[in-house]
């Protein structure tokens, strides 16, 4: 293959602005170069502050952050690669069961269980991702993801000798973190642990979505045909992000198993996959923070609705979904996003 370049850089005189200005503009647009915006720092500082100043809420906050990480994992495939999944709960549930089983049969050390839970889900993601490429239709993908989740639910239900079936997995016990921090009743260690893991995974995800690889995913989402003709190996890229997303979901599930020290069939139920979609949509798709913000909103809504009608809060969740779609997701997300851009972009 020839190695020549069509245009050698810098030889064409640039009109108007000085080249350096243009470079700066191009760089700003390619932008998300890893430079942190004030609002992002603020977000994570607030999260850190919640650890110190809201000790009564640690149990609830742990739930929020785990749900947020789960939604973030979905954002990787839905927001960045455009894959609509109705079965993301499969990876969450698998991660939870593996982490629970590791603590019973192998070791109570939390990081081992976390890693193995994530890995198991990642392997399942990698193994099932090719099914998504059979036909790039949303319906087929929906059915494949849903089918795998249902399969797993049935498997866990029937394999009672391993999973405890409908009674749930009994006897999960997690040792102190680093041998020092015991998982206490107030959820303080749990929250610190979940928050730290989520932050770390967020950093990695942020790096990945702003890389050329991340850009190629957005291109695939926008127009897979054209991505193909500029030489993007669409299939391989999708398998990779789906695997990563599955791994993230598995880790979220493992966190839930470890912090609650219990795993039940509920982790694999359909409503998990549906809830996480709602969470992500509430916060906005495709900018990584959507899952985390959506998780906060979701838990607040859940709280409000269960005080109005404890048994029927699902009705209101359904209504919220319907209303969101009828008003238009763009319009709803535009409000916080506009604010976000204003803060992020500074005075512009």
């Amino acid at each position, binding site marked *: 293959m020839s190695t020549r370049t069509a245009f050698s850089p810098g030889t064409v005189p640039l009109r108007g602005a000085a080249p350096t200005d243009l470079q700066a503009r191009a760089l700003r647009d390619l932008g998300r170069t890893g430079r942190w915006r004030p609002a992002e720092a603020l977000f994570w500082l607030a999260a850190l502050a919640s650890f110190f100043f809201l000790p009564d809420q640690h149990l609830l906050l742990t739930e929020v952050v785990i749900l947020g990480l789960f939604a973030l994992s979905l954002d990787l495939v839905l927001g960045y690669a455009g894959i609509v999944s109705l079965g993301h709960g499969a990876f969450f549930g698998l991660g939870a069961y593996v982490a629970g089983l590791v603590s019973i049969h192998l070791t109570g050390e939390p990081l081992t269980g976390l890693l193995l839970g994530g890995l198991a889900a990642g392997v399942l993601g990698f193994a099932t991702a090719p099914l998504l490429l059979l036909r790039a239709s949303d319906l087929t993908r929906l*059915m494949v993801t849903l*089918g*795998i989740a*249902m399969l797993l639910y049935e498997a866990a239900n029937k394999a009672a000798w391993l999973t405890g079936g409908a009674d749930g997995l009994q006897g999960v016990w997690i040792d102190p973190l680093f041998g020092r921090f015991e998982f206490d009743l107030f959820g303080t260690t749990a929250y610190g642990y979940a928050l730290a893991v989520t932050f770390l995974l967020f950093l990695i995800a942020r790096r990945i979505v702003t890389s050329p690889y991340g850009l190629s995913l957005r291109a695939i989402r926008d127009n897979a045909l054209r991505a193909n003709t500029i030489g993007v190996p669409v299939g391989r890229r999708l398998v990779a992000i789906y695997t990563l997303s599955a791994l993230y979901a598995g880790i979220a599930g493992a966190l839930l198993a470890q912090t609650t020290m219990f795993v039940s069939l509920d982790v694999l139920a359909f409503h998990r996959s549906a809830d996480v979609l709602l969470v992500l949509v509430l916060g906005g798709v495709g900018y990584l923070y959507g899952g985390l913000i959506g998780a906060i909103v979701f838990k607040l809504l859940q709280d409000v609705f269960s005080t109005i009608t404890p048994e029927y809060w699902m009705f209101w969740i*359904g*209504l919220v979904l*319907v209303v969101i779609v009828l008003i238009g997701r763009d319009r709803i997300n535009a409000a916080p996003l506009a604010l976000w851009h204003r803060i992020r972009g500074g005075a512009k």
Partner: protein
Amino acid sequence: MSTATTTTRDPALMLTILIDGIAYGMLLFVLASGLAVTLGLMNFINLAHGAFALMGGYATALLMNRAGLPFLATLPFAFLVPALIGAVAERTLYVRLYRRPHLDQVLFSIGLVFMAVTAADWLFGSQQQLITLPAWLQGRFELAGVAIGRYRAFLILVCAALVVGLQFVLTRTRFGARLRAAVDDQRAARGLGINVGVIFASTFAVGSGLAGLGGALGVEILGMDPTFPLKFMVYFLIVVTVGGTAGLTGPFLAALIIGVADVAGKYYAPELGAFMIYLLMIVILILRPQGLIAR
């Protein structure tokens, strides 16, 4: 079904299971036929299809148990109530979503399912709705040594009539031709003077009505409680995806395969549960990503 151990290879029993499976499959097809049109032909992902089946099932159960109507007399209501609600929902809500991304359609219809499930629970309680079939539909009769449930035979006859009728309407009538034209190319259809809105609304209404009728016919063998739309959502979707989006023949075949596989699976390998069905779906989609009968 308790004599499984001694008679697993009994051909008469296998025939009974086959007939049970066909009855179940045909019922599934009637339930899912509306979805085969909206999802298969119109490419609209409607996860709330089961909600209309729920309305039909409850219409029959309530009219029988509270108003004392005979089973057959409730069936027109089981069709009309969801058909009417379907028509209204199509004109006011669904119509706005035809051109929206699939994600929006998924979210919207999941929302409707959640609302329908909790609303049914709130209005009528979470218990199973039970009905007593008329005497002439109870029990079994023997045909050439094969035991056949009367209700199963009734289902097969009714559903077969519906299938033939549907296929006739879709392929032989002016309405069917207009619907196919509208689905293929809305703009061209409008150019030909076809009122696409009315066509879609009536199609949606009939599809919802058939789902309701299916729900009513299914109370006896599928059960009917508020979670029905969620429990059977996957089955309806499988019928359409596995069947393919070319018309009704594919979904009909798929429904029969799933019906027979499910009944046989529950009989011969009850420990697998619904496992079989999901596995079957994934295998078929691997072998035929476009469904059994592709466009």
